[in-house]
């Protein structure tokens, strides 16, 4: 036995090798020669930092929260469903529970009654978590900006990583937004956490203005409340 490959095997793979070589043309195949390969030579090891690796993993396998609010959620469902199929981008399995989700897409108008609930849902998601604001409503209140009951953007309540404008954004736009978020996550960029004007607070801690005074006997001191100051809102 020599070290030569057996003729029968060598010959049988010949046509494949030939075709490949013919396709590649002259020279070495540099598709496989990444910068990393160059640096490490032919060693079969890739060295990276652990958190870079984790970021790459996070970006490539996102679990979305199944969270529908208003009209934009219809387009969001279309993005998950057949034809647009968000799953192609590693982000297509909506989870019904916030405790299993990494990303929350906020698809619609947030009104005063829903604001605290959304905050609660967001708080239940495990860190690290990311937020995609879908549609004009989550940017500014959109078409309903002047409404007496409409919160002027999701950013009033939770920090938003990516805004996808549109009313509603097309599924393609949402896919683009998700891809952008993945890119950012993989690069280790996260949103700066903004200090929000409205947090859930204990009612007892609010400054004692006329309104708080008026409600004082109706609301338990320890109750969580959210205070909306429409006039100062952007």
């Amino acid at each position, binding site marked *: 036995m020599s070290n030569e490959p057996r003729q029968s095997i060598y010959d049988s793979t010949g046509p494949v090798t030939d075709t490949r070589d013919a396709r590649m043309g002259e020279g070495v195949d540099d598709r496989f020669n990444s910068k990393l390969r160059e640096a490490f030579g032919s060693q079969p090891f890739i060295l990276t930092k652990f958190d870079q690796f984790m970021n790459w993993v996070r970006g490539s396998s996102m679990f979305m929260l199944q969270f529908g609010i208003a009209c934009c959620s219809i387009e969001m469902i279309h993005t998950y469903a057949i034809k647009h199929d968000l799953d192609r981008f590693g982000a297509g399995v909506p989870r019904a529970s916030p405790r299993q989700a990494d990303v929350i897409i906020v698809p619609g108008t947030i*009104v005063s009654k829903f604001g605290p609930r959304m905050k609660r849902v967001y708080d239940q998601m495990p860190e690290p978590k990311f937020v995609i604001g879908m549609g004009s409503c989550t940017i500014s209140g959109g078409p*309903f900006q002047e409404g007496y009951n409409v919160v002027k953007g999701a950013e009033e309540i939770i920090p938003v990583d990516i805004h996808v404008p549109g009313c509603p954004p097309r599924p393609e736009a949402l896919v683009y937004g998700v891809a952008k978020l993945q890119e950012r996550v993989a690069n280790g960029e996260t949103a700066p956490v903004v200090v929000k004007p409205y947090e859930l607070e204990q009612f007892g801690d609010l400054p004692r203005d006329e309104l708080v005074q008026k409600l004082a006997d109706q609301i338990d001191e320890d109750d969580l409340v959210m205070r909306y100051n429409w006039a100062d809102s952007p």
Partner: protein
Amino acid sequence: MSTDLTTTADQIDEDGLEALIGDRALTRDDHKNAPGFVIRPDEVQSVLFDLRDQAGFDHLSCVTAQQYDDRYESIYHLKTYDDPTREVSVVVPTPVDEPVSQTAEPVFRSADWAERENFDLVGIQYEDHPDMRRILLPETWQGHPLGLDYDQDKPQVVKFAQHANPLEADQHDTESDTMFLNIGPHHPATHGVLHVKAVLDGETVVDVEPDIGYLHRCEEQMCEQGTYRHQIMPYPDRWDYVSAGILNEWAYARAAEDLADLEVPEYAQVIRTMSAELCRIAAHMLALGTFALDVYGDFTAIFQYAFRDREVVQDILEDLTGQRLMFNYFRLGGVVWDLPEPREEFFEKTRDFLDELPAKVAEYDDLLTGNEIFQLRCVGTGILEPEVAKQYGCTGPTARGSGIDVDLRRDDPYGYYEHLEWDVITEDGCDNYSRVLVRMQEVEQSAKIIEQCIDLLEEWPEDEREIQSNVPRTLKPPADTETYKAVEAAKGELGIYIRADGTDKPGRFKIRSPCFHNLSALPEMVEGEYIPDLIASLGSLDIVLGEVDR
């Protein structure tokens, strides 16, 4: 257009109504759609009882409230299920310093939620109402936003309430083994942001209360701030947003055209009819898909099939209107533009869709309605008796699934429907299954309508393709004209009440939402049933929260 109540043996005409109400009527306040009688606030029940029992007005379609400088006013818009063109309005003024009026709840159950909404938004109190609480805004809200003296800029405090057991007060003892369950407002089976408070005894639902208002986007205020001609039309798209936009636009168009006496060219009517029915197909497809998802978690087959078909419809609508979801295609007096060029391509595309539809419907039948598991879940659950449905003001597929033969497209014709061949579908099962069957068959009927419209449009002579009538640049309907007009939207009777105040914006714009009333019947359907049937019933009502809350 004034009233034309026909006199037959069992129907009462306008004089008859006058005689029936007698001197309880203080004056007349006729609306464009119906005669109106002004009555005293403490005679609401007696008048409504008489109208219901003696004149046959069995459908309280809408309750509007509004504030004038010198008074508050509640308007009860009554209709009959048999003939929705028989209408009468009962106007109840109350003084500004003491806006208290008798409740109509004992006469019509649908007044329950409607009056709560009026209390919430306008501030009229209804005496003896069983549950006079806010319905759309948070409990701690200060002021009534559609009242005249509301200051929108003042701060508000919104509670994140602990979820109390509603039975606690009266039944809380060591013996009691009921359980309180919150469903929503963030829950996959509530079709948006609905909050259902359920009390369970074992697996049986003892008490259920839908809590709405998580998507109250001030639609009425927005419409009151917009000009008739262009600024209002985008909003209807956002009421029932499951691609049913054009049906909603039609509701506004119909009311405003009636208010300002605008004509719509016949060609535009055909386009309107066709596009509206395309929307209906898309809306019903979504209802089917999500219902399958609700009852047996079918995210893979039927749900995806339904969305595949919706994509096709949306493509066609996009060719027509330029948008996938928020069409903004109607204009007062017509539509915004003609069919896309080349027309043949559009016709071909639509025809292709229609040709493939029967095979797809057969597929749904195999997968869904013919499926044993599905039948087990749906047949005989969520029973809604026709009499109950009428009491709650249910309309649309929900009513038709209870055997009530009502469809405004046929009974109060508009658009081009009268000239086309199609049927109104009813099923007598009164259960979840019937409601699904109704929707499935309506898809076929819509396809039939579209096909006829396409034939007409193809033949239409080129020089007669008039898409809009002549509409003044600024519309200013004369002050104090009032009208209430409804169309058959995907979920039922979508009505709009408009009062003109002489400017180019409406003085009051009230939306009668079919989902709002359909949803109010939920407790009747599920109390005493199992909790999974609650989910199925909710799904079969096919509510859209954008329309429930507005």
